[in-house]
């Protein structure tokens, strides 16, 4: 598959279909691949695809507004691209998608803690959202670099477990997690759907949120961000992987995804012709206040 990715990247750069290709190359620390921006066809050989390509590359597309961008996209990256198109942030024709069926990414920090290396690649280290992923194949692409994988519908056993806890237990869990937050906004910056030009926390007139790190501050930030992703989150896990404090952010976003699925039978970022779920209503919706 990696040969196909490299060949296609080289081809579209050579033919001038794109100005640059966003993909992954080998990182400089163990168990980490790092985003790379290929502008010369001969550099396409740098590209890699492995179990440690854990960032969502769709976050970079809008950086290159004046360029035609090629992008190596797995399931969740392609879903982010679809969402960006639906929300009018990019145009379909501005991006050339090299689709990659994805078997999931591995939790590098867990592996490192257990003293594991590249040799220990094993599905027992899959990130939770990858383990229960419902879209391993890219939902949109111009070129597919490998055989499509069998799909299973998204599962939420982790969230069901959380739902079974009492209110106090859930609050305690939530507190434990968010209290580690240092407000570095790595979660926001890593998220392809967090593209607001001015984030609500950066507005200081009126001031929605103070710069503190008390439980109220960090709780508000984490909940506020999560809510802004309701019906938009593609469950790529980029936020949680980016968090330097290892806060389990997906507990919030996956809960929202589960709710959106149950309430509206909707999964974000699947079809560019769909409307955002919270941007329209149907008579089948459970809420009856609008009728």
């Amino acid at each position, binding site marked *: 598959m990696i040969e196909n990715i490299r060949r296609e990247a080289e081809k579209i750069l050579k033919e001038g279909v794109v100005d640059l290709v966003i993909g992954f190359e080998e990182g400089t620390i163990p168990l*980490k691949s790092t985003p790379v921006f290929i502008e010369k066809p001969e550099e396409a050989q740098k590209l890699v695809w492995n179990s440690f390509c854990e960032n969502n590359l769709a976050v970079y597309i809008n950086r290159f507004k004046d360029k035609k961008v090629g992008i190596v996209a797995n399931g969740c990256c392609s879903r982010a691209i679809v969402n960006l198109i639906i929300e009018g942030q990019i145009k379909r024709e501005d991006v050339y998608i090299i689709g990659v069926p994805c078997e999931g990414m591995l939790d590098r920090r867990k592996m490192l803690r257990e003293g594991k290396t590249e040799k220990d690649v094993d599905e027992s280290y899959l990130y939770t959202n990858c383990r229960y992923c419902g879209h391993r194949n890219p939902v949109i692409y111009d070129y597919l670099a490998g055989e499509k994988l069998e799909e299973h519908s998204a599962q939420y056993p982790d969230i069901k477990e959380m739902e079974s806890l009492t209110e106090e237990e859930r609050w305690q869990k939530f507190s434990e997690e968010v209290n580690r937050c240092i*407000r*570095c906004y790595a979660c926001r910056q890593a998220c392809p759907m967090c593209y607001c030009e001015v984030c609500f926390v*950066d507005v200081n007139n009126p001031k929605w949120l103070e*710069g503190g790190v008390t439980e109220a501050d960090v709780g508000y930030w984490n909940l506020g961000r999560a809510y802004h992703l309701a019906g938009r989150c593609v469950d790529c896990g980029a936020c949680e992987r980016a968090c*330097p404090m290892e806060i389990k952010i997906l507990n919030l976003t996956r809960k929202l995804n589960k709710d959106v699925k149950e309430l509206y039978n909707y999964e974000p970022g699947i079809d560019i012709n769909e409307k955002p779920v919270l941007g329209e209503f149907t008579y089948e919706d459970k809420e009856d206040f609008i009728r």
Partner: protein
Amino acid sequence: MRQIDKEKFYKELNSLIGEYTVYAPVGDRVKKIKDTKEIKFEGLLTRFPAKEHMLPQNEELFRWNRDKKIEVKIPDTKAIIFGIRPCDARAIASLDPTFNTEKFPDPYYINRRKNTIIISIGCNNPDDTCFCTSFGSGPFDPTGSDLLVVDTGEKFLGIGKEKILDMFGFEEGNDGGEFEALKKKAEGKIERINLAGIKDKLDSLKETDFFKKISYKCINCGACTFLCPTCYCFDIEDMERIDGGKRVRIWDSCMFTIYTQETSGHNPRKQEERRMRQRIMHKFSYYPFLYDIFGCVGCGRCISYCPVNFDIRNVLKTIGGMDE
């Protein structure tokens, strides 16, 4: 070299809790401890540097109430920070020229600094991301520490202020060359980056597209700056409540767009590459220019915790390899 049984050292440290507020590594942070039994080393460096005890993420400068009464509280507690690494100790020392200036001495910082004893612990087994030796320092560098201890298994060897060594009861003795041996072994594991002429080279790159290229993959979060032991940028915010309010100094990051946002709406560092340039230049050009020291100690946290594996070593190596 003066030395002490580790057991005795910890007993002494324990007996100082109360008279001193003692901070030590407890997992991924340097925390206030009530008993030395709480100390837990997790990996080489704590994820969060000890700078938070010199420059808290949120620091109240003063508060007021509705009767227009202003209350200023300058910290005056005596403290010991134990168990941080030499790089983190040097990092704290690197903050001195910024906060302890003749013109604008910062009483909050200065008082904390003055009242804090820093006891660092040498790194027998450095991490792959360490590059402290590039700064003429090293895993056993006592600069910035009031006391540096080196773990030999049973004992701590100590280098530092006589007064502190006496305070713990370090005895005279012969280490049989163990300090030098451990030091040599540890230093051998650390990659040394050539930083000669880095300031001038950087200055010459200021108006080129160098920073644009390297900033492509940076997502502009503040993980590197918040976890950096030498980054100190802050914002000041008034936190209003119904019965009064307080003015608080809070950490800020040059990687954030809002950092340089002006009231007029103009932002001189709106583009990602300008913010990247600021971070690199501040550490490797402006800081050496102003104070003759680098604004980096080579702890490697920004490398380990960067969400996209932006590696400052590569930037330094690229620049280092350029012709002057």
